[in-house]
Each structure stands twice: as structure tokens, then as C-alpha cells.
């Protein structure tokens, strides 16, 4: 008998043309797709019962000059086979002016995750209602979680300019 992951993989490959799906271990399905099909794949999975968006993450593969977005889905279902599954939907976008459509219409809780990725990786989500700063205090030329952001250099440039309290007192 085929397990839940294998069945879902077949279903996905039948419904979509240009995607790759792989069941790497018993409870994990990895789906690679183009950036414009992400939202349809996610809504397909949502309708198949994988209705919990656990995380949207991003990995900066600087050598390949791409950002990889990872949408992790699980199920609220009490059905044991489904509840165990972790589905990772991955898509790659260019590092220069990265942008793709928001998935808020499919998963409402994507809102803060997309806001975070916009802030930390500079990805623009089209159709997002508020891409305002979430965590950070200052503006950055390079988004700070990208691999080419040099933390040490930034700290030296910004914080070393602030004089010590003792020096200030001595000046007076």
C-alpha cells in the first residue's frame, strides 16, 4: 500500500505540469515549483486538507544568485497519516529585485511571515496590505539577513561612530 506522501505526490504531478515532487522520508514531501505557480500549488494543498501554514522561510543561495522561499505546510486533520506529513513547497527567485505574489488569500497567517521576509531579505510581496517594518529599527542598504551583509563592517561603521561617555565628559 502506498503511503500518504506517495499518493499526494502522484496527485500533484497529475494536476501540475512543471513541478518536481519528491518524498524524501516517510513523512516529508518536497515540492519544487516556479514562482508564479506557488499560489495555485498552495491552494491545491490547502483544499487537499493541508490547511496549516507553519512557516515561510527563505534561504539566500548567494553562489547560485537566488533566494529560495520555503513554505512549510502541515495538516490540522485528526487523520493520522495526514497529520504526520510535512510538506515543503520551494521556489527560487532572483536576488535582484526579488518579488512574487502574496499568499494571504490562501493562508491568512502568512501576513507576518511575508512582512518579516520583506524586511530581512528585501523580497517584495505583491498585493500585501502592509509591508511596513516589523522588527528592525534602522534602514539598511542590503537587507540584513542576506549573506552579503557584513555584520562586522556594519557594526564598525554605525556604532564605532558613537563616542564613549567618558570622552564626552572630557570634552566638556
Amino acid at each position, binding site marked *: 500500500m502506498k503511503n500518504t506522501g506517495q499518493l499526494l505526490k502522484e496527485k500533484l504531478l497529475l494536476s501540475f505540469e512543471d513541478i518536481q515532487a519528491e518524498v524524501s522520508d516517510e*513523512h*516529508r514531501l518536497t515540492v519544487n515549483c516556479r514562482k508564479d505557480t506557488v499560489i495555485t500549488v498552495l491552494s491545491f494543498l490547502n483544499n487537499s486538507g493541508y*490547511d*496549516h*501554514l*507553519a*512557516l515561510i*522561510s*527563505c*534561504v*539566500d543561495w548567494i553562489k547560485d544568485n537566488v533566494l529560495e522561499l*520555503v513554505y*512549510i505546510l*502541515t495538516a*490540522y486533520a*485528526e487523520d*493520522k497519516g495526514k*497529520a*504526520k506529513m*510535512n510538506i*515543503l513547497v520551494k521556489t527560487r527567485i532572483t536576488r535582484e529585485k526579488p518579488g512574487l505574489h502574496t499568499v494571504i488569500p490562501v*493562508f*491568512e*497567517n502568512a*501576513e*507576518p*511571515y511575508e512582512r518579516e521576509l520583506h524586511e530581512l531579505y528585501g523580497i517584495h510581496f505583491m498585493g500585501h496590505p502592509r509591508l511596513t*517594518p*516589523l*522588527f*528592525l*529599527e534602522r534602514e539598511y542598504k542590503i537587507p*540584513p*539577513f542576506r549573506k552579503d551583509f557584513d*555584520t562586522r563592517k556594519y557594526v564598525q561603521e554605525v556604532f564605532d561612530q558613537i563616542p564613549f561617555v567618558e570622552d564626552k565628559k572630557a570634552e566638556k
Partner: protein
Amino acid sequence: MRELELYFGPQHLGMVGNFSITLNVEGDRIVKATANPGFLHRGFEKLMEQRTWIQNFPLVCRINVVEPDHMELMYAMAVEKLAGIEVPERARFIRSIYLELARIGSHLFGLWAYANMLGFDTVANWAMYHRDLVLDLFEELTGGRVYHIYIWPGGVRRDFPEGFKDRIINTLHTIGSCVPDYDNTFFNNRVFYKRAKNIGKITCEEAKRMGAVGQVLRATGMKQDIRKTEPYAAYDQVDWEIPVRTDGDAYSRIWVVRDEMIESVHMIFKLLDKMPEGEVYNKIPNPFKWKIPDKDAYVRCESSRGELGLYLVSNGGDKPYRAHFRTPSYNHGLTILEKALENESIADVGNIMISLYITAPEIDR
């Protein structure tokens, strides 16, 4: 009536840590709430990319101050999955017992915060005292009171000291004997009922749509717990029940927390009974030269606040390439809180926030 903007926080009674909300109010009714996190953003995930696999342990446990143990577990589980390390049977049991103790400690801390906020100072002091007893156990086992770094890839750092089993049982009996007192003064108290009933109500559908997990979801009637659905450590070795309530308000949520504590105590007794003898860790490679194959892993567990996950990526080097924690407070504090506060009164803001069981360090990371 004129609409005013009111800044609530970052220091206030409704939260463990710093977190602010901007409230648009008409009279004392809230029209719109905007969560404003970031006061505790320490960039741990970026920092983890600069540290070796083992050096990251002191970092991960500091991501959530209230329950560092589940963070350790997540990181250890992810590293085990990437490197293909097995955990011995006894270590699995020790992990479960240790994590349940951590859950009790964390829930008592949550109870302290809630009781303190509502003005039940006696109950708050009891809860803090009982949490301290749990911390004493941790101190004996690991050497640390709050941050333990006890769970390790391949098992746990050391075995239980002699007589430790009895001391766990004694401590749990001490706490358990006070449950009737807690019930009389707090959980069944009419004042508490009036303050918490029908406050911050969420239906099951809404909870699912907005990504709720943990108590927030279980208080709406949904039986969901990662310890059951995707068992890790030794949770599949013993029988236990998932406590649920159906009303979805602040009162139900805190009752779920109470029932969970009692269930945890029972679970620890069962685990102690069944615990096998044997090794507590498998050897790992030399940490200074440890390289992990080019892979990624997503692991999850049920922390005391709900589903906690970690997406960990390795590029074949001696450091993680990317680590991203999925924390339960994230959606509770940013999506659900804004919804739950609408049309409530200003006096209930702290009440709703604590009942959603949010901790700020977990959101900001």
C-alpha cells in the same frame, strides 16, 4: 465618539518580555489594534550562521527565556536528523521527563503572570514558589537553573544522579497536593470567572484560519498535539489524554493549561515507571571538525505554548547555513491578538494577551 490612539507597552502587565500595541480606541472600546514587536530582536538566527554546530547550543536556549528546553530539543533533533544520529532508548525517556518538567515549570510561570496581572497575588506567589522547586530539580540535574543545555545531539549530557527519581516524585507530590488550593483560590474563583469568561473569544474555524496552535487551538475544541500526531522522544511509549475545552475564551485557555499540568505530572510518573536502563548518549564526531552533509530538515515539537518548529539548512560546512524557528507565539501575537482585541475594552487587553500565552522573545528572536 472621537477616536484616539493609545500606546500600550512595551512595558506592561500583559506580557512576559517587551511588546507594544497601538490601540485605536473609542471611549474604552478598542476599534483596531496593531501589534508592534521588535523590542527583543537579537538576530539569533543570523548569529547562528557564524557559530559551529555545537557552539549554537547556548544561543538557541536563549531564544525563549521561559522555556529554553524545547528550543534545545528542536536544535538537537534537527542536527540529529541532518547528521543521521540515533538516540538511545533511555535518553528518549529522560528527554520526555525533562521536557514535561520544563512544561510544568513554564506553565507555573504562565500562571504566575496571569494571576499577578489579575491581582491574585497569593496564587502568583504560590506558582512562583512551585516553579522554583522545579528549577531546583533542574539545578541538580544540569547545573543550571534557567538555561540548562542538557539535551545534546545523540542523547542527553548525563544520566540522572542517584536518588533523583525519588526527588522528582517528591517535588511533584508537593506541587500536586496544592492543586485543590489553586482550584479554590483561582480556577474556581467567581472573580476570576467573571474576569475571564467570554473574553477574547475565538471560534475553531477562526483559530485554524489564523494558524493557532497549542492551548489557543485546544481551547476551541480541537484535539491537536504534536506529541500525539508526530511523537518524538518517548511520548509514544505511554498513554495520556489531550485536555480540551470548547468555549475558546480566556477562561477555557487557562483551564487547558491547568489540565495540561496535571496530565504532565501523570505522564512523568508513567515514564519513570517504564524507564529502561542503558546508555544515555551516542558519541558524536569531534565537534571542532564536525561537518554535516548538504541537506535541509524541518522538525517540530509541542512546546508548552504550541507547535514549535525549526527549519535548519546545511551546505556541507561546519556551521548551519540557515536556521529559522517557527515559534507558536508568532501567529498568536501578531495575527490572532490583533483580531481578538477588536471590540474589547482597554481593561481586558492584558487579560487577553496573557491568556493567548504569548512571550515576546519568541516572536522577535
